[in-house]
């Protein structure tokens, strides 16, 4: 059952455009305001607080906007019971089981994410550490690269 005006409420384009513009303007204003914050702790905290508030406002606005602007199926329409009320045709079942291979990829993501986390602190002291630091990080990365070499050769990351 494809998207069909007959089954859905008519969307109101003007309202959509207004909401979009409000959001854009709001995010621009909040960013500009956050940038004015200075370095003293109190002001930094204030900026952080303001930033979180603006994020909350944006997220809230989006949710509220979606509540009003979404394309809804009429109560009596057969679309009402489908996964997507907007009329999108679902392919297959909604409940599919993910293949374990996603899990391997995710695991490697976590591992190399942690690895990267250990490299941030090096990045800020790279000058002071000099050659010795390079050797330390080199051996750290070298050992991990052996694992990557192993995984590559074993085709662990190949989408079987």
């Amino acid at each position, binding site marked *: 059952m494809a998207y069909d005006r007959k089954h859905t409420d008519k969307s109101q384009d003007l309202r959509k455009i207004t909401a979009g513009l409000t959001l854009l303007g709001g995010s621009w204003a909040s960013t500009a305001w956050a940038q004015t914050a200075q370095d003293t702790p*109190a002001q930094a*905290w204030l900026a*952080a607080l303001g930033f979180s508030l603006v994020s909350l406002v944006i997220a809230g606005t989006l949710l509220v906007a979606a509540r009003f602007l979404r394309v809804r199926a009429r109560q009596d329409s057969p679309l009402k019971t489908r996964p997507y009320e907007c009329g999108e045709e679902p392919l297959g079942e909604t*409940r*599919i*089981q*993910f*293949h*374990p*291979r*996603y*899990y*391997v990829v*995710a*695991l*490697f*993501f*976590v*591992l190399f*994410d*942690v*690895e990267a*986390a*250990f490299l*941030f*602190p*090096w*990045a*800020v*002291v790279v000058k*002071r*550490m000099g050659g*010795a*630091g390079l050797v*330390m*990080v080199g*051996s*750290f*990365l070298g*050992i*991990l690269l*052996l*694992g*990557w070499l*192993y*995984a590559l050769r*074993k*085709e*662990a990351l*190949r989408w*079987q």
Partner: protein
Amino acid sequence: MTTEQILFYILGGGAVAASAAMLLPPLGKSPIHSAISLIVSFFFLAGLYALLSAHLLGALQIIVYAGAVMVLFTFVIMLLNLRPDETQEPRITAGKVLAGVLAAFVVGKVVTVVGLASAGAKAVDLAQPGYENFGSTKEVGYMLYTSFLVPFELISVLLLVAAVGAVILAKKSLHYVDRPEPPPSVFDQEHAHEHMHTQSGTDHAGDTHAPHDANAHAASHH
């Protein structure tokens, strides 16, 4: 109350509330909702770290935990993919009651200890000399590559073992590419069937697949 205290109570309260929402209905009934509550809790914790001047830790908490680890959690939830009717209604058993009592005891103990022992504690003034860079990324980096060099290098071995272990446990077969496919293991039997069907078409085209894949599928068609 100072600003710090107010922030502490907001962040701490938020973390506790999000953790509670993880387990209790209505959010706690669905695994995905629990996972999202966990993310919220991670964010509050990151705020607490920032409050303690551990900015790097706060950022890493979000990058690694709320980012990477949660991806892993989500994949596991989707891998298991329990239907609502498959999840059992929680039943109260003697073991659970005992566990609850023990847990309550431990929590009570922790709360009392923290309450009693922190009464006389005095705050460290980070404004005093010697603490200017406390918790900064620079300071952490410097410590990591000097006094904590040994654990740092050992971490790489730990990560390597984790990667190798993941490959061994999750990979379909540890045999090499040019070896014929062994019979599917207990884990693969469910998927082997579906695998065969979805890929049989491309196998005959014979492009991207490793030789053993093509062989195995060709063999299964005869």
